[in-house]
């Protein structure tokens, strides 16, 4: 009993001070972080105030974007409507730079002013600009659509009266992506600012990793946007009151759908018996991330073949999609994987976390016989190993440490890093694969494409696009030229599944030597000109122009581990409008790409311009212009020009948002320390005092 007493007494006494200590420690460790959490939640709601050169706040017209897509099989017809509301009491001009999917064939412009609809016409770029300028000065309502880059466009709408709304509708055609039975569409909604390296490039000299940076040029041939206006997009924080987007999609797949997914936006789906109708749940979403939709039709068991035709006065146009037989056995050649990762400033925030996760995933897939290295680049580049090393446990754990320490900062000097990757010594018995992880926020795409063409050798280049708004056009093109594939990862939750898909492509045999043979007498003009190699799950998509309609059988052959051939009856072709435009868009893309292999600007222009005019497409040399001949703005009223900002891509840290924490805990440490010492001293004094009185 007494023993027990003796034990419990002090324990009860002790518990109190320990609890107090524990409480102080808790306070100490949680107080700052609780505040930091509160901060995080508030982030994103503010706005970046822009002021014009006279210090006045910019009252840019309010913009609503409405996207309507009609998907029919593998072709999507899309109409993008941009409504410019002028809420000020002055006459304004709205300027808006916006992205469209890569390889979209832009062929329509309609301007709606009140009840009137003015249909735009295709003109040579300079002429279109001149018509627009003239109308602008005469006070007529006018709009023009220019192409800045293959996936970056720009509208200008002049003379929007006070309180008036002008709607501009831009129409384009697009081929739906297909991969292993899954169809997908992507609609870019904003732009990640591109980095333009301060380089000088002489197209005559071959590039090496030793090429002095000063010897390489900022000027991208054929890019005259500098003459029309600045290219750098302006960004503002998401503000649905100023800018919003709504999307409606009608999918006609011919059969009902097994499932339909929108990974980045909540959607509402109404199933129909031949497809589905989809719309954004929030019809006033801020356009701060790209929209993606993918769907899987119920498979009917038939081999997937789609064959469409559209005759016009230029000839017969054919669009063929065919899913080749799949080889399921993985390749046994050891691989040599060079991971190249972008750690530039534009990757700050969510993007770098995705990149790190994707890299970790890629490292895990390596077998001991494989070799690998990791190169990171921002303003400079650095390779983890001087040359690829075997994927031993030690090397892998070193790489994992390296990857987990990657941070985003500085410029995007992609070219030297790419050259370094491509010029690593090659080994005979390894299959070289370069996995390039980036948001590709670069403006020097042509130089990079040239480098890939010149230096690729037997390697294959796989691009992985990261972030809310990567430059898909460049990444897709680079992968095509690099005989690899393009993978888009839009959120951290997708890293696992998308990297697994990529791994399947990396480790499965490639479908090569794809050949089409037409009935005798038919001479096809393919666009793209060559059918590249295909990876597991990818369909063959071919657009061709024939002189006249063809009858008979088309045979397709190819080779994986063995050879195969398929016959397709041309009589089964279905008429479909848009096939001609899609062919022409691909053809123009091909012709533009010859720039990188040294074709002169003049000769490209000479072949692209007539094609774009014949097929009524917006291109580097042609623009759509619409003018309402009715004069609107009275003489003497001033016209103010306003640039409409693009919404900052979600996850991109912007300085105002990423305000760093700038206080150390030193003061708190000192305060707590001092308090505790005083308390200890006081207690000690009291204890001694008690002891003394007890002794007395």
């Amino acid at each position: 009993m007494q023993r027990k007493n003796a034990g419990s007494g002090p324990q009860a006494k002790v518990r109190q001070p320990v609890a107090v200590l524990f409480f102080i420690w808790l306070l100490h460790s949680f107080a700052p972080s609780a505040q930091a959490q509160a901060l995080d939640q508030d982030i994103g709601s503010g706005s970046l105030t822009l002021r014009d050169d006279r210090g006045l706040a910019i009252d840019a017209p309010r913009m609503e974007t409405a996207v309507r897509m009609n998907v029919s099989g593998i072709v999507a017809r899309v109409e993008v409507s941009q409504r410019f509301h002028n809420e000020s009491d002055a006459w304004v001009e709205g300027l808006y730079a916006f992205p469209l999917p890569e390889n979209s064939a832009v062929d329509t412009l309609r301007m709606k002013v009140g009840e009137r609809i003015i249909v735009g016409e295709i003109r040579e770029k300079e002429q279109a600009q001149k018509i627009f300028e003239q109308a602008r000065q005469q006070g007529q309502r006018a709009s023009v659509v220019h192409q800045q880059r293959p996936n970056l466009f720009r509208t200008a709408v002049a003379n929007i009266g006070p309180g008036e709304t002008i709607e501009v509708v831009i129409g384009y055609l697009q081929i739906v992506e297909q991969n292993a039975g899954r169809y997908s569409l992507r609609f870019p909604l904003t732009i990640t600012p591109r980095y333009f390296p301060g380089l000088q490039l002489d197209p005559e000299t071959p590039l090496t990793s030793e090429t002095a940076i000063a010897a390489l040029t900022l000027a991208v041939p054929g890019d005259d946007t500098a003459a029309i206006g600045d290219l750098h997009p302006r960004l503002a924080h998401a503000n649905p009151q100023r800018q919003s987007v709504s999307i409606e999609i009608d999918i006609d797949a011919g059969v009902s759908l097994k499932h339909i997914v929108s990974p980045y936006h909540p959607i509402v789906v109404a199933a129909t018996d031949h497809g589905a109708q989809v719309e954004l749940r929030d019809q006033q979403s801020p356009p701060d991330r790209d929209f993606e939709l993918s769907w899987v039709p119920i498979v009917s068991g038939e081999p997937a073949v789609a064959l469409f035709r559209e005759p016009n006065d230029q000839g017969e146009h054919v669009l063929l999609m065919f899913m080749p037989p799949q080889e399921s056995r993985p390749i046994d050649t050891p691989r040599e994987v060079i991971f190249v990762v972008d750690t530039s400033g534009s990757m700050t925030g969510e993007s770098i976390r995705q990149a790190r996760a994707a890299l970790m995933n890629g490292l895990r897939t390596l077998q001991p016989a494989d070799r690998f290295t990791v190169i990171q680049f921002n303003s400079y580049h650095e390779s983890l190993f001087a040359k690829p090393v075997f994927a031993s446990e030690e090397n892998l754990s070193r790489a994992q440490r390296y990857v987990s320490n990657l941070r985003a900062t500085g410029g995007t000097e992609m070219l030297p890093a790419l050259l370094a990757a491509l010029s690593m010594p090659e080994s005979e018995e390894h299959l070289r694969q370069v996995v390039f992880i980036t948001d590709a926020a670069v403006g020097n795409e042509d130089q990079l494409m040239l480098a890939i063409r010149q230096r690729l050798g037997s390697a294959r280049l796989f691009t992985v696009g990261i972030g809310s708004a990567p430059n898909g056009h460049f990444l897709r093109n680079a992968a095509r030229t690099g005989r690899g594939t393009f993978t888009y990862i839009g959120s951290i939750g997708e890293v696992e599944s998308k990297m697994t898909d990529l791994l399947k492509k990396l480790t499965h045999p490639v479908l090569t030597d794809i050949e089409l043979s037409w009935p005798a007498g038919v001479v096809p003009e393919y666009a793209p000109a060559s059918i590249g190699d295909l990876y597991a799950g990818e369909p063959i998509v071919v657009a061709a122009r024939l002189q006249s309609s063809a009858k008979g059988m088309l045979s397709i052959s190819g080779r994986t581990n063995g050879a195969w051939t398929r016959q397709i009856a041309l009589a089964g072709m279905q008429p479909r409008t848009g096939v001609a435009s899609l062919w022409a868009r691909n053809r123009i893309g091909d012709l533009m790409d010859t720039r990188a292999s040294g074709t002169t600007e003049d000769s490209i222009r000479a072949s692209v311009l007539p094609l774009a005019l014949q097929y009524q497409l917006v291109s580097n040399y042609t623009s759509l212009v619409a003018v309402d001949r009715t004069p609107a703005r009275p003489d003497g009223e001033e016209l103010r020009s306003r640039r409409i900002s693009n919404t900052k891509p979600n996850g991109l840290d912007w300085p105002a948002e990423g305000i760093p924490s700038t206080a150390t805990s030193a003061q708190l440490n000192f305060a707590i320390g001092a308090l505790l010492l005083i308390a200890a001293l006081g207690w000690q004094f009291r204890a001694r005092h008690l002891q003394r009185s007890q002794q007395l």
Partner: protein
Amino acid sequence: MNVARSITRREWTRMTILAIAAFGVWQIGSGAYIHAKAWLAQQLIASAWTRTLEGERQVKPWPWADTWPIARLQAIDQGVELYVLADASGRSLAFGPGHVNGTAAIGEGNTVLAGHRDTHFAFLRSLQPGDELAMQTADGRKWRFQLSETHVIDSRYQRLQFDEQVAATLTLLTCYPFDAIVPGGPLRYVAIAELRTGPTSLAMPTRP
């Protein structure tokens, strides 16, 4: 029995007092460590900076560092000299003020530098409009800035305001109030300096 009990009790009391005292010493030590690290890092960075001026790039001040100096900052009237690091992550800010990612390079637009209010950027408190700041960038060029205004923002509701395409400015950012005890508050002190032409007085001898 009674004696034994009171001894145990006294021992417990003493141990608790000792523990509290030790914890207090450790806290003060941690605070001192932060200041010592801030001071010592700047000394180590000085030699990395010399090598940077000689043409090397991304010179890490110590082998395991993951940042590097990109500029030298002097507050002439305050007698302050600091090396600015390439980023403003929490890790780097312990060693010196950092360049906030995504803002312009020095002399090319609005550059934002962030620093700790109680170590490197404590001098901002005494910086007055009109005071001069001098900077040297990695290419050896020298820049002269003059403080034009200071204000306090609440980072929960306000953003830094950026004039588009303005001449070069330097925005120094630190936490506010300067002597708050608990870190992590929402207020930020913003000091804006504008580029001035003319010779810079970046002539102070490097640290003795």
